[in-house]
């Protein structure tokens, strides 16, 4: 990566020897960070390494226990995000901070609304938002409500929100986790446009490939400690990965060849509408066999969300059928599907996957609290529930240990996902539906999640994998089904796909 825009004068951001303690726990232990104007600086670390803690201090959400923060060479004390925004710092959080019932426009201008006299000028706001979105190529529907739009579009709204406030220093926390490969390319282009304008970007990511593609420098944090800052040009992905986790990481998933068995999931001529009532599934056909991973590749908004919602009983289809082991689960309740062999790892782990206020042990029995040994005669058996949780925490490497009674909301994203995987895998159903299962996870956790998914396949389960990560689809799938405009347009054996061909098919083109 060229560093043509980097201005080596006074650093835009300097964090010196930052220490942050929560009680006895040291989340940041002497972290240094220097970012110049025109620079894209990646921060790399595992889930729970202290990246978010560090950024939250820069954004005024937390106060350092000790250490100094300088903006443009001046020491600054940040008491709240307002101070950070005034200092020209903008942040896009990993978990969206959007008001669900508000429209896209309302969310973007929230707190910085244009006024006409004393009233809101929503027309101007809408115009500004459209201009901004066109300028940076982030397509959005300015009038859609947040609760109705896809995770991908919500992410774009978050990015626009920060840009709208005219931030000079932009913190992006996992900004690409829900974008398609094309969108990621566009985003990286946007990031370069921004640095060209003299802005600087702090990029928090687990994706080594993106760091190589986008970042100039990279600071690595492990277990709260400062490991080092490297010039990205001088290292490769393996170097970065081992600096991050402190050991060698394998990127290859070990997947023995295996003959698929009988048909488990059979979707026939499925039609369905999206939140606006517009037909989005237009006669989709799909089969998943036992012992097979079928990956759905497609650009967000081509019907994959609705497909999964219909299969998991959250949405009604308008026509067609879907069977699991010959039993129709079409337009039945979620519990009917569960009883007839469907388990799933939902796309939005905090909304659908977990009850964040519930303890981990209670989250682990979300579908089978009513069954032995977790309850007897409608009374919960706390001992069995606790034992089950202890075993799951150990078997699935959920951290921290001894967290059976802790609310799920206190865990890091990767560990929240492990709780869901522990639950769904132990349900031992014939069909596992996994939607973006590694969204926002670090390479260590991704490796782990992938192992579990492949293990399910090896045990003869049918796996339907829906993911916006093409790499994930390509490395895990036995069959890749490309979804476009509500139909499966192409079905390719996993080993034979390449990224360009898939990208073309996903955009509605024809393969050679």
């Amino acid at each position, binding site marked *: 990566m060229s560093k043509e825009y980097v201005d080596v004068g006074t650093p835009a951001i300097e964090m010196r020897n930052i220490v942050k303690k929560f009680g006895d726990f040291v989340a940041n232990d002497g972290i240094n960070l220097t970012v110049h104007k025109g620079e894209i600086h990646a921060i790399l670390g595992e889930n729970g390494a202290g990246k978010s803690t560090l950024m939250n201090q820069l954004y005024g959400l937390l106060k350092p226990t000790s250490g100094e923060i300088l903006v443009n060479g001046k020491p600054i004390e940040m008491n709240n995000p307002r101070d950070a925004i005034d200092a020209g710092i903008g942040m896009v959080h990993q978990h969206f901070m959007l008001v669900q019932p508000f429209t896209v426009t309302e969310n973007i201008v929230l707190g910085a609304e244009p006024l006409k006299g004393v009233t809101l000028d929503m027309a101007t706001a809408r115009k500004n938002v459209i201009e901004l979105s066109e300028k940076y190529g982030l397509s959005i529907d300015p009038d859609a409500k947040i609760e109705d739009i896809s995770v991908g579009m919500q992410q774009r709204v978050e990015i626009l929100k920060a840009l709208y406030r005219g931030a000079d220093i932009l913190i992006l926390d996992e900004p690409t986790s829900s974008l398609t490969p094309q969108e990621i390319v566009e985003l990286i282009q946007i990031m370069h446009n921004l640095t060209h304008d003299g802005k600087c970007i702090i990029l928090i990511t687990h994706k080594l490939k993106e760091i190589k593609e986008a970042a100039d420098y990279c600071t690595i944090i492990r277990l709260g400690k400062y490991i080092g800052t490297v010039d990205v040009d001088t290292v490769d992905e393996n170097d970065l990965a081992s600096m991050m986790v402190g050991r060698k990481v394998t990127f290859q998933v070990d997947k023995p060849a295996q003959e698929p068995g009988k048909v488990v999931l059979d979707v026939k001529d499925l039609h369905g509408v999206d939140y606006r009532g517009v037909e989005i599934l237009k006669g989709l056909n799909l089969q998943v066999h036992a012992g097979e991973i079928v990956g759905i590749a497609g650009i967000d908004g081509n019907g994959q969300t609705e497909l999964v919602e219909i299969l998991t009983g959250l949405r009604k289809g308008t026509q067609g059928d879907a069977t699991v082991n010959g039993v129709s689960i079409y337009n039945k309740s979620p519990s009917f599907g569960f009883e007839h062999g469907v388990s*799933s790892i939902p796309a939005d782990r905090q*909304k659908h996957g*977990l*009850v964040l*206020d519930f303890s981990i042990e209670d989250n682990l029995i979300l579908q089978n609290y009513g069954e032995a040994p977790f*309850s007897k005669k409608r009374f919960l058996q706390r001992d069995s529930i606790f034992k089950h949780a202890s075993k799951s925490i150990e078997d699935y490497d959920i951290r921290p240990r001894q967290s059976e009674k802790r609310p799920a909301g206190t865990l890091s994203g990767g560990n929240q996902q492990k709780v869901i995987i522990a639950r769904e895998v132990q349900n031992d159903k014939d069909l596992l539906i996994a939607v973006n299962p590694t969204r926002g996870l670090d390479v260590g956790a991704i490796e782990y999640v992938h192992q579990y998914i492949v293990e399910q396949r090896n045990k003869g389960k049918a796996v339907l994998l829906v993911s916006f990560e093409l790499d994930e689809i390509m490395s895990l799938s036995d069959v890749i089904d490309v979804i476009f405009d509500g139909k499966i347009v192409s079905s390719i054996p996993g080993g034979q796909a390449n990224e360009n061909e898939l990208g073309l098919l996903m955009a509605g083109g024809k393969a050679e």
Partner: protein
Amino acid sequence: MKEKKSWIDFISENTFIHILLSIILGFLVGAIFLAVMGLSVGAAYGRLINSVTSLKGFTYVVVYAVPYIVAGLSVAFSFKTGVFNIGAEGQFVVGAMAAVVTSLFASSLPSIILIPLCFLAAMCMGALWGVVVGILKTKRGINEVLSMIMFNWIAFYLSNYIAGLPGIKNEGSAEATKNIAANASLQFSKDFIKQAGVAPTFNWGFIIAILVTLLVWLMIEKTTLGYELKAVGANKYAAEYGGINVNRSILTALGISGAMAGLAGALLVMGMGQRISIFSSQEGYGFAGIVVALIGCSNPFGVFIAGLFYGALMYGGSKLNLVGAPTQLISVIVGTVVFFISISVIFRNIKYLKKRGNASTKKGVAKA
């Protein structure tokens, strides 16, 4: 130095302390009002404490507290399950009326049958009042708070109408129903009351209140039903994804909460009240239930204690005029307590004061 920090953390993170601070602040504000009116704070609060600490006074407090405890449990249960039962008032009223009417029409039955029958009638009516609102919400998407407030008024006027019907209305001049059948009364015998020197309306209701408290705790913490209802309350999307029928859970929660509010009404008329007056405005037991649930942090045992506290304020407050203080002072105290509990997030932020140095930290804590 280190210990001080943990002390501050303790204050800012312990909900029980927040409640205690809110109560102390309530009494402080009450004291300011007394001082402004030129009354002796000591005399008024002394009177308050004296009137509830004697045997007779304490049993009065228990008698007063029973309907508050059970109404509080009703609201607390609804909080836990994600529906805000502001309709406890109406459910309480129809429950009370159901108990009175049942006792009058089945007055010949022996107590052992009549009393459970009255409870059952009251709980059914209360549950009905809750479930109808639930059906309107789940089937028609009607905001439950609005329909509950309307149902409160329907209950109020229905109660006044029934109380005036021949056969139910008191034949004397009193604008009230007849007294409930003697067989349906929960009050202890006159002899026992005289001998023991307890409040003349002392009754079995407190046993029921203890039982209901235990039952609610058991239901919420130990049963699969409680698990389902709490899951829906905490995250209905995940609950639905996990296979829980969300609409049915909302109806169940409202039904159970309504039944408890109805039972609270029955406990009032079968214990202390013995009859229902024709009122010109809502009595507010159900609304008091909201206050009690708030003070009790929606924890069943917390609600039990909060109900006793509320009962003590109500009974003790009624004696304040003996020292020339207005009984409305109690409303000021209760209002202030609720106000501070509602904004108890401020106590959570005490720890941020420590950044400004030790001197101001000490002051901040002392003040709070």
